């Protein structure tokens, strides 16, 4: 029997034994239908977009990318369902394992990974090349949330802020070295989001931003002057090219320019099958990083607005789930996932429409790629689990009160 109830509803109630799990069986719907709707809508959009964009890419197999993406979706859905059915609170216990796995997988990629386009990001595991930095996003989020919950009594201490940020920055630094700047930035965002939801003081954030600004200045301005290469030349060019893309349309500005032309040429309702930017390969990476430009070109403002609405729905449900989480751990995870998705969507879409630099961040669920899809489904599964647990907990509480 668990110890008798305490009356003080302070936040350390999260220190519950893993065994004490609410049952979800009694709920009418053990998941959030709107969240599911958003996910299914995005998956459908992804399949339709990729099938149109990549029909000519692999000679003799027009469905090459669609088929694979569909398989990833099915696998991801199964994972999400499984995850939604178990109590996420159990994951608290796995924090050391999760963090260890995160670091180990990044290092393993560094040691064994295959080089694609100049960066070593993935381990080839036969049927699919596994991109550790993607899965790492969820692992880091779980580990950081658990860590914060452990320190729930000292949330306002400077100590906590520093440690959480360090824990996030270590893997971030490791993936930036790969080089995978995009994932590194996502890690930093996850760290900040966890601190934000946990309630770190505003002054801590101010200090962090100041430190960040100094670090950026050091890497971009001071380091090159003293001859230390922190960012690769192309990374710096990509980061700054979006400021004036017409400067060098043949090089750094090229992708962004072509992407903007693709989106703009879609006009209100899109060019459909006459979408030449995609068809004739002017738009690079049209099934991965620049998939949103394909949506914009083929289906115009209407299509782009539909996809964005699905993301808005996703974010809204995420925030809603954040409010009904049954404990701090759930709230942190939900907040982290919402921030992560929001950041990825904004940076990726912003990149295709020319208001954000090119960082190589995929568009969740829409971009082709197993690692990204599975990771996003894991995140969605966690959200569903938090929803189910929160609802169940509320229901039980309600019933308990009724008794």
């Amino acid at each position, binding site marked *: 029997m668990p110890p008798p109830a305490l009356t003080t509803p302070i936040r350390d109630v999260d220190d519950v034994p893993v065994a*004490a799990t609410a049952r979800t069986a009694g709920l009418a719907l053990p998941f959030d239908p709107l969240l599911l709707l958003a996910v299914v809508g995005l998956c459908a959009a992804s399949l339709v977009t990729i099938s149109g964009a990549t029909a000519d890419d692999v000679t003799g197999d027009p469905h090459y990318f669609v088929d694979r993406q569909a398989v990833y979706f099915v696998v991801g859905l199964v994972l999400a369902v499984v995850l939604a059915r178990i109590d996420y609170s159990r994951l608290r216990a796995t924090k050391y394992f999760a963090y260890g796995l995160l670091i180990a997988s990044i290092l393993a990629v560094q040691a064994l990974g295959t080089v694609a386009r100049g960066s070593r990001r993935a381990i080839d595991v036969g049927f699919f090349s596994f991109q550790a930095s993607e899965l790492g996003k969820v692992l880091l989020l779980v580990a950081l949330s658990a860590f914060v919950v452990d320190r729930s009594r000292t949330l306002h201490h400077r100590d906590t802020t520093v440690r959480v940020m360090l824990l996030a920055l270590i893997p971030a630094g490791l993936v930036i070295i790969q080089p995978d700047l995009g994932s590194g930035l996502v890690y930093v965002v996850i760290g900040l989001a966890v601190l934000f939801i946990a309630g770190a003081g505003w002054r801590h954030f101010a200090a962090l931003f100041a430190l960040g600004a100094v670090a950026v200045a050091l890497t971009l301005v001071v380091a090159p002057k003293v001859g230390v290469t922190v960012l690769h030349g192309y990374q710096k060019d990509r980061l700054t090219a979006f400021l004036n893309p017409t400067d060098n349309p043949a090089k750094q500005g090229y992708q962004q320019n072509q992407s903007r032309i693709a989106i703009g040429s879609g006009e209100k309702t899109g060019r459909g099958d006459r979408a030449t930017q995609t068809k004739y390969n002017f738009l690079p990476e049209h099934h991965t990083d620049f998939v949103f430009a394909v949506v914009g*070109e083929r289906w115009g*403002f209407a299509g782009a*607005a539909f996809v964005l609405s699905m993301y808005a729905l996703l974010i809204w449900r995420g925030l809603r789930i954040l409010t009904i989480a*049954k404990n701090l751990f759930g709230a942190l995870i939900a907040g982290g996932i919402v921030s992560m998705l929001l950041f990825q969507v904004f940076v990726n879409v912003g990149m295709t429409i020319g208001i954000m630099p090119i960082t190589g961040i995929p568009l969740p669920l829409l971009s082709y790629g197993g690692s990204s899809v599975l990771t996003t489904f894991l995140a969605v599964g966690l959200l569903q689990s938090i929803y189910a647990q929160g609802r169940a*907990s509320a229901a039980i509480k309600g*019933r308990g009160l009724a008794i």
Partner: protein
Amino acid sequence: MIEPVAAEDRRPPITPQLALRIALLGGFAFVLFAIIFFRLWYLQVLSGDQYLQQARDNRVREVRVQAPRGNVLDRNGDVLVENRAATVVQLDPEALPVAERDAAATWGQRVTARSKRPKGKRGPLVAIPPPATPQTEQRFTSLARVLGMSPRTIQERVVKSLAMLPYADITVKVDVDVPKRNYLVEQPERFPGVSVERRYLRRYPHGTLAAQLVGSIGEIDEQELKLKRFKGVPQGTVIGQAGLERAYDQYLRGVDGSTRIAIDALGRPKSTTQGRDPTPGRSVRTTLDGGVQETGEKYLRQVIEQGPGVAGGFVALDPRNGDVLGLGSYPTFKPSVLSRPLTQQMADRLYSDKFGAPLFNRAISGSYPTGSTFKPITALAAMSTGVVQPRDVIDDNGCIKIGANHEERCNAGHEALGPVNMTSALSKSSDVYFYTMGQRLNYLAGQPLQRWARRLGLGHSTGIDVPGEFGGTVPDRAWRDRLNAKEARCRKRVHRACGYADGTDRPWTEGDEVNLAVGQGDLQATPLQMAVAYATLANGTHRVRPHLGAAVEDAGGRLLQRIEPGTSKAVRFDPIARQTILDGLHDATVDGTSADVWKGWPQDRYPVFGKTGTAQRVNRPNDQSWYVCFVNDRARPIVVAVTVEDGGWGAEAAAPIARTIVSNWYREPIKFVAGKSHTR
């Protein structure tokens, strides 16, 4: 049974702080989405049409379809220049490794740096670098094997082209035969970046005929694009670069058409649609007479090959209107060599003095002292000013003393011709008589001799319609003073002789005028100028503006437009003076200096008026041979001027050529008779 609810499991109430932060997060998300929506609205709805246009432009590449240039015809409709379709093999610079392009750029910079150093300190020529990578070398070798050329030549052309026009396709070989073309086209994977293009080359059915006149063609360059006359001409158009091709480019040049090729980002063609059809250029009929031209060139060549002449030129005009019937220069060249990339060896052959600079058109750009052919002008000036009357007799005893220093000037070989009047002085070419005229004219105000020389077309360009004409020099007092001042200024600056004048600050003297009176000294005139001067004398009323363009025709030979010759300038002669000179010139061909050249000529039907000239030139082994003559036939008059550098006596080298030209014009049997007169 329901388990008791664990208190810990109770949902924690949301603290106000957390609520605030969730609201902030939501608000932040809302702002981000709003930004994206507004940006999308701007891109897709507000400026979508503009991006749509860009996307379309992206997709379609316009490929130029060259328009065939018009033909160049002679006055009888015989083709001088026509077109021939040829296959050109090109190489896409994008398909070459960056290292190769860098190497070419470095080479170009070094060549430029070398050319900026002063002559003599430039050091050895900058060597063409070897192919940058073994793969490139391999590619060039296999391509060279197919094209039957050396890989070294390909590398040379690649480097030169890349250095000059980094983004333009590199022309590897012009004029490739069909089997080779097909071999290349059928195996694109073996020859990456290699493309073939159909291009029109100029063909010259008569070989070297009128080589310096017809000119050459080439792609329009950066400077030319800015010229007013090429306004609206797109880059890459082939335009006339010299001669008639240049002068009548606006008619000869068609309008290039285009084919629109849909391509992908890698430049692979997806489909082709016909864009604009090319408009072929129009033909230009010239005033040249093929027979006159061919005869003139043939005998000029024959004379020079026999020696001692080394080079020369001739001009044949219609004295009434300035129609150029023939105009040639020797040494000559095959104009077809200019339609292919020039090798260094070929360029040397065309430009260097060692080979006689065949590109140099001596008939319009070669300016020389004219010798005695100038005497009719002196005669005009003398009689018009009254310093001599036609019948005045001067005793020619072979020599005369000139100027303050009493310098002695003599006839050729100190030959004493006895008493001579104007007519016989011209016919026998008495130097002493004209030295005297020079002495008398020198003291008249306004330098009438120079005025008459200019009036007849010397000292300034004649305005012929092909580029490259030299204006020549008619020396006078002011000219001498100008040169002295220039020399003085220059010497002050560099402290050594500059070569404009001898540095003695010598003013214009009687000696200068006497020299000019017999076409010697500082006088510089082109064969064309002499022909114009004699044409003026022949028609007696106006100085013509020589021209080659006659009419513009379409491909079927229908007249589209006549090319109007430039206005001629009225010249008023004293009729007695003119008649005296004509008498003298005719006597010269009957029993004077060129009598033996014209032996057997039907003087009754075609009376010839002609003057020999033998000009002494400093630093030349031999005298410059001159002959200018005309036949004032009512229906078909002609004036011919011939000069041969180092040719010796006028009657020996130049006059016989003139006779062959006139013979051809009047369909008389062509006889080449070298004269023996040793007078200037």
